[in-house]
């Protein structure tokens, strides 16, 4: 007697997975293949349907473009710095605000507000507030303290962007860390108190190690998000001054739309894709090796 349950599990698996696989092939696989073809072609908007294969010349163009390396360096620094700052600040707030949030949970909703605002809008808002001639912040700095400070000038634009990004995304880290902090079983913390742990010991030996997996995940998510930043930076500083705040996303966007260099833009995204895949693969490898140590 053959019943459904006796059918081999792999055939059932294939049957059930088919719709998803088809969906992915059509909507992700097709554009990916087209992109791969464009990246090795000489192509413009007029010749989109007849790309002429030109080997690796697009990759060479990208590779030799100093703007590409400048943008990569910007994205890397921006992603790493904002991820570390957001996680450090989020961790600090999660631990020190948790007694307050426990009692008044609506505080969390208020703390989450920055996450609800569209990043482009945040960029626009700061662009107005920090504007050298019309913005209120430089105006009052000048009238009250006699200080003239160009927030979006060549020396400070990078740090202004870092601060803006950190202010907007710290609540995300705070949310993750607050959850992880609340999930630590109280008996384990009490056991450490019986063992003689003071506040600092508890944090260092018990709470932080138990939160470590969440911290790694938050750092990773924030790094990826910061690395491919586009909207708030684009709105706040364009890519200036002098291309100094062009992220990789902005570089690709400008190559594509402003220079019409489709092949170059696509080649840059392929490089980005391969690079991020390599990073992810490496992290995954480390994580699976570490799994033995952390629950």
């Amino acid at each position, binding site marked *: 007697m053959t019943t459904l349950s006796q059918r081999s599990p792999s055939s059932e698996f294939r049957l059930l997975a088919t719709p998803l696989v088809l969906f992915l092939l059509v909507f992700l696989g097709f554009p990916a293949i087209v992109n791969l073809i464009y990246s090795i072609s000489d192509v413009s908007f007029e010749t989109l349907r007849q790309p002429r294969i030109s080997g690796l010349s697009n990759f060479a163009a990208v590779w030799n473009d100093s703007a590409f390396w400048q943008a990569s360096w910007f994205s890397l620094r921006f992603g790493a710095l904002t991820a570390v700052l957001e996680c450090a600040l989020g961790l600090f707030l999660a631990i020190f605000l948790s007694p307050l949030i426990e009692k008044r949970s609506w505080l969390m909703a208020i703390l989450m507000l920055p996450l609800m605002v569209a990043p482009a809008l945040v960029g626009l808002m700061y662009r107005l507030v920090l504007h050298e001639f019309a913005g209120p912040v430089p105006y009052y700095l000048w009238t009250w303290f006699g200080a003239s400070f160009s927030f979006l000038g060549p020396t400070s634009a990078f740090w202004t962007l870092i601060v803006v990004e950190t202010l907007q995304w710290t609540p995300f880290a705070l949310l993750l860390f607050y959850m992880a902090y609340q999930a630590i079983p109280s*008996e384990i913390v009490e056991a450490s108190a019986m063992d003689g*742990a003071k506040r600092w010991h508890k944090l260092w030996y018990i709470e932080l190690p138990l939160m470590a997996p969440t911290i790694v995940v938050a750092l990773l998510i924030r790094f990826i998000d910061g690395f491919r930043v586009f909207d708030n930076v684009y709105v706040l500083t364009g890519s200036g001054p002098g291309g100094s705040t062009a992220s990789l996303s902005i570089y690709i966007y400008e190559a594509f739309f402003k220079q019409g260099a489709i092949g170059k833009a696509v080649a840059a995204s392929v490089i980005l894709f391969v690079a991020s895949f390599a990073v992810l693969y490496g992290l995954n490898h480390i994580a699976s090796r570490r799994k033995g140590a952390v629950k």
Partner: protein
Amino acid sequence: MGTISLRKAGKQYGTSEIIRDLDLEIADGEFVVIVGPSGCGKSTLLRMIAGLEQTTSGKLLIDGRDVTTAPPVERKLAMVFQSYALYPHMTVRQNMGFGLKLTKLSADRIKAKVDAAADTLKLTPLLDRYPRELSGGQRQRVAIGRAIVREPVGFLFDEPLSNLDAALRVDMRLEIAKLHRALGATMIYVTHDQVEAMTLADRIVVLKDGRVMQQGTPHELYETPANLFVAQFIGSPKMNVLPCSRSGEGRLDLSGEGAIELPLASEAAPVQIGARPEHLFLVAPESGHCRGTVEASEYLGGNTSVFVRNPRLGLINVSAVADSPFRIGEAVGIRIDGARASLFGADGSAIARRQAA
């Protein structure tokens, strides 16, 4: 040393009083078991002694030193939690050595102490494992090991066996008793299981609604309960409580049933007789103190619990010999062993009987 005393200790959460004016003196090396139904405040009491809960009134002294407001570490007590509360990111060795590490003891000394404790608890082969790689019983032993390496003045156990299966519970019970004999340290053990209380304790403290109902050796509590609550809480199966009235000097009437000759020490009128199932005997219907019909019987191997229904006295549990000939629906008589029965007044407190000369 390890004397612990509570003087009029109390614990209040807002307006609700969990523990009220509790006095308790625990001698060095004593094994005290605190029992009570859930919600009686026994875990709160233990956590107050540990320092994990603030004592809101009264005093707590350890070895004569006032530690009412001292943090847990200064009390030099160790606690074994119900959930074991092992540090999941540390190996067994790190778990056991954590407290010592915080005291800045040298790594060699920590290793020596952990090895010694692991040896007594048969944990040596498990020292490099993580808690999640251990069984429940092994985790429990690690939790105990973590407590003993610190050489505390007293041990606190918070229902340590309730997460284990029945067979393991019996083994661990014996091991804890053995540990107490070996270490000779003061131990306070909280449980809702009166069997654990009876088997482990030098002294049992019965708690109800934050008050001590009675304290004494298991034998005292079993033979001379101070009130109905203790009488029914200690002992399994539960003591039968039968309404009665005084019908003359040394005579009690069982609500319309027979009379029992019982010498009383005072003029107080008992209204209830407490008789344990093993102190009742099934006899022919006409020769007992009361009668009834067999409603159910539970064969337990060594003996049989026979439930006899009497319209005025309710359901009476009699412990009969295993192959008792009584069948369900049959009319039987029950004879009460008057010498072993307890008497209770209207307020539920026990009434003393004149000592049989």
